[in-house]
């Protein structure tokens, strides 16, 4: 029996043989007031799960597009407290699963146990800590799980089998499989390392595997949807936001991606 929205989502998608469409946006980019309507547009466009990024001054895992989004959000006065306010506002209008996506330091400063409780109360369903390795994870995973939140970890092309096993142990909800070495950002080509990495990860877990990093076109999203249980699109949305795209344009781009993902999984269903 699924205990929260993330698990419920993947179970219902599994039943209908569809891949999840996951979007990342930085909370507060371009302003805290704007984020809830961007999220509503994404949901109308067919996004299943939202990664809500907490802006950080030194985002070492991110490429230039998300770095710039983080800067805009910080300049607009976005704090972790405000991110939770934004989550609460989204939750008033929507049941979309929300994954809080953050670097460790803002969470440490806020207070980890307090953050877990407050995030749950604000309607957050899970937490991904970008720079928390599984070796250091135990003391952090405990309060998050105790608050009833999922803990999502990253698997990377460089992850050894021993590491993948630990990543599977510490993860709940789903595992975020990084489709290529490097930082976040759009790429023209998909990495050939994705399929082997998905297979290697699958040996250690039954959790859904969502793939991301570099997916920016409907063609890429379709290709990934054939391999993974979910497709994450981040920088492409953040780039749209940086171009002052209105809600209608964001929704239209999301819908295009959604169609590509569903088209791919439907075609796969017929040939299966």
């Amino acid at each position, binding site marked *: 029996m699924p205990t929260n929205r993330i698990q419920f989502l993947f179970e219902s998608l599994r039943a209908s043989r569809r891949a999840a469409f996951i979007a990342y946006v930085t909370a507060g980019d371009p302003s805290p007031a704007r984020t809830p309507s961007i999220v509503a547009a994404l949901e109308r466009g067919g996004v299943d799960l939202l990664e809500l990024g907490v802006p950080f001054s030194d985002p070492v*895992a991110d490429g230039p597009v998300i770095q710039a989004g983080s800067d805009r959000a910080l300049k607009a006065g976005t704090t972790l407290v405000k991110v939770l306010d934004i989550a609460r506002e989204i939750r008033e209008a929507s049941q979309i699963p929300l994954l809080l996506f953050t670097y*460790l*330091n*803002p969470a440490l*400063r806020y207070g980890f146990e307090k953050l877990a409780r407050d995030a749950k109360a604000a309607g957050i369903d899970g937490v991904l800590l970008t720079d928390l*390795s599984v070796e250091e994870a135990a003391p952090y995973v405990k309060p998050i799980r105790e608050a009833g939140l999922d803990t999502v970890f990253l698997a*990377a092309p*460089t992850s050894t089998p021993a590491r993948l096993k630990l990543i599977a142990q510490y993860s709940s909800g789903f595992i975020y499989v990084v489709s290529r*070495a490097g930082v976040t950002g759009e790429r023209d080509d998909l990495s050939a390392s994705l399929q082997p990495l998905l297979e290697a990860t699958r040996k250690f877990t039954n959790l859904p595997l969502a793939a991301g990093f570099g997916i920016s076109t409907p063609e890429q999203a379709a290709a990934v949807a054939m391999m993974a249980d979910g497709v994450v699109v981040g920088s492409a949305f953040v780039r749209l936001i940086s171009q002052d795209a209105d809600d209608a344009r964001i929704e239209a781009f999301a819908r295009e991606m959604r169609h590509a993902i569903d088209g791919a999984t439907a075609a796969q269903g017929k040939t299966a």
Partner: protein
Amino acid sequence: MIASQPDSTGHFGPYGGRFVPEALMAPLEELEQAYKIAASDPAFQAELNDLLSNYAGRPTPLYFAKRLSEALGGARLYLKREDLLHTGAHKINNCLGQALLARRMGKKRIIAETGAGQHGVATATVCALFGLECIVYMGEEDMRRQRLNVFRMRLLGTKVVGVAAGSRTLKDAISEAMRDWVTNVHSTYYLLGSALGAHPYPTMVRDFHRCIGLETRAEILKREGHLPHQIFACVGGGSNAIGMFHAFIGDEAVQLIGVEAGGRSGVLGEHAARFSGGAPGVLHGTHSYLLQDDDGQVAPTHSVSAGLDYASVGPEHAWLHDRRRAEYTKVSDSEALAAALTLARTEGIIPALESAHAVAEALKRASAAPGQLFIVNISGRGDKDTDIYREHLPELDQPDANQPNPIPV
């Protein structure tokens, strides 16, 4: 026993560890393993020692600063002359060690960050020596204030990449180097320049600089017959300081004093004094004291010295601080500049602005410590800072400038 730090996963008490995106974890494990094997390989140590003595110029002198001691009228001061090493600072110790390691690991492309440019120059130097491709990331603000070192790196065949993000200083250069590493991890070795970052860097960098303290300890015992009372070193990331301190950690009577950049004032953003103005946090892979705001965003820093201008500090220093085995204090921009002038005019030694911070703290304490023996680590020489000295001492830059008398202490 503190000397046995870190534990097997790179923790110094509650500090240190490995906080990086998953893609960098396996490369760090590979690095740790390669270092462990190299460190216990006599052939590796022999090659490193040969380079340290015949290429870099070790051992460095331990110089008794007679005129300065007399002028101060209190403690007797010795200076450990790391500034006399090839490339002008202690940084070469670590670069030679890590370049040998990179070569053993079969990596042909070296990346590094630099603040003051001393680590960048040392990295560029060893890459030229070993025929390795070299890319150095440097904040644009630091490129402006350390133009000479930018040119030296280019002269040595290194590509210097300016970083325009954030405060455009050392912190942003490290972030950009980490992004390069995560993208090019198979071909690339990240030659980190201070006792910072994720395990095993803080331990490995310390080990490559331990020679500073080991030489100092043996030499002072030979010359004076006893250990010093107080040892001073500046602390940015903390590599010269940990290299100097480490051999003395077990000598409880020896006071170890790390000197941070007090900058312009005690206001957040105007200094780089992590221990008085920061709180534990995670940046660039390690848990240590960190200058940050109430929301956990890393705070901007300032120091006249680019090499001390960083928001975090090596995790072993955080542990020595909490254990009260070392004391950490701060010196302002103007105190450091004044101390540099004093040293130049009493001993004929122009220190790097980083090292001038350590000198300044020793000068403050010397007159109240008659009969004591002080050692100051002169981690680098001041040539690279000539532009900044000129900016702050415009009276010396006039055609008729002529000041025959030493600045009074």
